[in-house]
Each structure stands twice: as structure tokens, then as C-alpha cells.
């Protein structure tokens, strides 16, 4: 129930902040670019776009969201409310992954890359949760936007570079153990899609649990309790 209320609030704010409008504009732009590309490039380009933008939007926006909540003292209110850190994290991850999955699907369908709707949706959804969890972990430990942006660069490279290498032909099976690569394998319904799904679930749950712990500490700190 609490998670539902948090989720409703987060979605409302994200709508107000213009996320839905922004991604409507970018979806049109990305789809336009896809159609301007030669047909044989579209599949790879669509997957690359989904991985680096809608799926990664949590990593881009989480810093600003958390820092704004800190400065507006929203976190102080949450800290003294019965809301648990895992509910707070769940709401943040789910609210962002709704936009990511919708935009990812729009780009994927336009790019003709969606051969299995379920696999593709789950792949984008989990990857989005994973990126958002990483964003949350970083955001909880910084105090300015510039510091957040700098801190996301290595995280972004670590997740994206192996995935891009895999997408463009460096197809080693062991690479599927990497979260970004498992997303690519799952979204493109590759031979190891089921294994990729399990790997992606593992990484997402692990990072979500870690972010919940970090957020718990952050809420304790703003709530005035430092044990």
C-alpha cells in the first residue's frame, strides 16, 4: 500500500518534471534516426539507443531527483514516516522503469528488433532498474549535480562498453555474466536468453538490495540518527 502511494507520487512528479514529454520527443527523434539509417544497421542501432538512453535514464536523472529531495527536505519527512528504504527504492526503480520500458518498446518495435516481446520488455525493465539502482547508490553519496555526473561516468562505461562490444561482434559466451551484455542478449532473444535473464535478475536484485542499504543509511542520516 505504501509502495503504491510512493509510486503514485513519483510518477506524478516525473510527469510534472517533464520526463514523459522529454521521452516522447526523444522517442520520435530516435525512431526518425532509425528510419534514416540503412535497413541492415537498424537492429544494432535500436539496441544501442535503448541501452544507452531509455534503459539508462535512471542513471542520468537519479542524482537530480535525490539531490532535489534532499534540498526540499522530502527525505527528512520520509525518514520519520513508516516508509521503509526498500519501499522507497522500489518506487523509484519502478516509476522510472515504466518510462524506460515504454520508450524502449517504441524504439525496439520501430527498429524491428523485437522478436520476442516478453524477453525484450523484461530486458529493458530489468536494465532500467539496474541503472536506477546504481544511480541511487551514487546519488546518496554526493552533494552536487556535477559530482554526480562525474561519478556516473565510470559506472556508465563499466556497464555500456562490454555491452556495446558484444553487440558489435565480440560475442564471447562468458560475457553474458556481465549485466549490460545480458540485457543485450535478452532483448535480442539470443540463444542464451534464459541464462541472460537469470544473470540480469541476479545483478538487478543485488544492486537494488545494495541501494536499499545505502538509502537506509542516508535516511538515517537525514533523520538525525547516526548510529
Amino acid at each position, binding site marked *: 500500500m505504501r509502495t503504491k502511494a510512493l509510486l503514485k507520487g513519483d510518477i506524478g512528479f516525473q510527469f510534472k*518534471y517533464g520526463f514523459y514529454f522529454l521521452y516522447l520527443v526523444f522517442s520520435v527523434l530516435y525512431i526518425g534516426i532509425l528510419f534514416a539509417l540503412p535497413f541492415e544497421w537498424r537492429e544494432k542501432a535500436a539496441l544501442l539507443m535503448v541501452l544507452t538512453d531509455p534503459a539508462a535514464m535512471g542513471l542520468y536523472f537519479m542524482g*537530480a531527483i535525490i539531490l*532535489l529531495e534532499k534540498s526540499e527536505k522530502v527525505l527528512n519527512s520520509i525518514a520519520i514516516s513508516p516508509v521503509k528504504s526498500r519501499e522507497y527504492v522500489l518506487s523509484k526503480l519502478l516509476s522510472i522503469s515504466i518510462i524506460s520500458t515504454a520508450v524502449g518498446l517504441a524504439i525496439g518495435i520501430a527498429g524491428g528488433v523485437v522478436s520476442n516481446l516478453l524477453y525484450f520488455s523484461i530486458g529493458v525493465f530489468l536494465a532500467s532498474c539496474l541503472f536506477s539502482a546504481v544511480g541511487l547508490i551514487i546519488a546518496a553519496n554526493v552533494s552536487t549535480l556535477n559530482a554526480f555526473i*562525474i561519478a556516473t561516468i565510470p559506472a556508465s562505461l563499466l556497464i555500456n562498453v562490454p555491452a556495446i562490444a558484444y553487440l558489435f561482434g565480440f560475442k564471447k559466451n562468458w560475457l553474458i555474466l556481465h549485466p549490460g551484455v545480458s540485457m543485450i542478449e535478452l532483448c535480442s532473444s539470443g540463444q542464451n536468453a534464459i541464462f541472460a535473464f537469470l544473470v540480469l535478475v541476479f545483478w538487478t536484485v543485488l544492486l537494488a538490495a545494495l541501494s536499499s542499504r545505502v538509502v537506509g543509511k542516508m535516511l538515517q542520516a537525514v533523520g538525525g540518527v547516526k548510529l
Partner: protein
Amino acid sequence: MRQDMKPSMKPLLRSFGMFIRQISKDSMLIVVCIAPILAAFFFHFGIPIIEGLLCEFFRKTTVLTPYNLLFDLFLSILTPYMFCFASAMLMLTEYDEGMTSYLAVTPIGKKGYILSRLLTPAVISFFASSLLLLYFALTTWAFMMIIMVCLLTSLTSIAVALLVFSISHNRVEGMAMAKLSGLMMLGLPVPFFLLSNVQYIFAFLPSFWIAKLGMEQNVLYFIPALLTSLTWLWILYRKFERKLT
């Protein structure tokens, strides 16, 4: 009021010092300084290598070479864009924390705030991007053309930062605007890929005219480029003033 019309130098320098201290504390300063140099090295030495590999792979004589000028144009905008982006992020933080209103009523004033946060970084990056273009360009540039293009890219970058700051109400909206403002750069590749008159749909973007100026090497294109930049700046500065009222 008089001080807001004409801010004196000392508060401006102090305010600029605050900006530099803040972004150096975040490590953003080092990134803003190093990233354009790395990009310049990559464009200058990496692109020809990639071109060789692509030509071999696609069995063509040229793949990227027709777009060398586009790489140069990106290089010319990278330094001011990064510097002004870092400044916009700091301005968003300062606004959310209520610092901007305080600074605006000190001898710095609204104009001084913009001068120290955007104009000074843009002036510094104008010199930096001119040097980068002079030494790392992939195509041949006349000295005057470098000056004109770097002046325009610096003005455009100020407009982008003002767009991010003036339109948004808080830093989350600011980040959304920052993403959207990337579209201001869309004008750079347009004349390279849209060869018909349809390209003039993008005539409201300064970046479109900057690309035309670079492509045609015709000084006349400097006029619409400057006019569109100044129009954007004028509109956005008014928005900025209203935001701080």
C-alpha cells in the same frame, strides 16, 4: 540597482572564483579541461585510423572523410559546451539551495551572476577551442574562420546553459532541459545530411548557421549565425531575469 546595471570587477572575480572552486571540488574542472583535449587527440589521430579500417571493411575510398569538417565543428563547440554545462549544473544547485537570489542582491547582481557563471567560462573556452581547432583540425581552416566559428559556438553554449537554467524550476527539470537542449546542436549535422532546402527548417538554430558558415566558408553566413545566437540569448536572458525576480 546601479550596481546591477554595471557590476564592478572585484565581486565578479570573487563570484567566478567561487564557481572555479566549486567545480574543482567536484572534479568537474579537471574533466572539463581534459575531455576536450582527449577528444581533440581522438579526432585528429583516431578518426584517420578508423577511416582506414572502415574503408577496408566497406571496400570504399572514403567513409568518414566527407564529414571531417563536422568533426571539427563538434570540436569547436565541445569546450564551451562542457564549460557552460558544468556552470548550468552549478547554477541549478545554487538556485535550489536559494543561493542565486542572495547573490543577485549582493554587488554581483543578476548581470554579474551571468557574467561570472557563463560569460567568463565562455570567453576562456573561446580561446581554448580556438587553440584546439588551430592545432587539431582535420580540415584546413583560415584563422579568421576559426575566430568566427569559436565565437559563435561560445555564444551558442551560453544560450544552451541559459536554456537549461531559465526554463526549469528545479534541478530535475534542469536535467530534463539539459537533455532536451542537446537538440540545439542538431543544426550542426543538418547541412551535411539534408541537402535539399528542407534543411532551412532548422534555420532557427544557431548551430545550423555555424555549420553552413564552416561548409560554405562564406562570411555572410556569420550574420544569421550571430543574429540567431543573440536572439536566443536575448529571449533566454529575459526569462532568466524573470526567474530571479
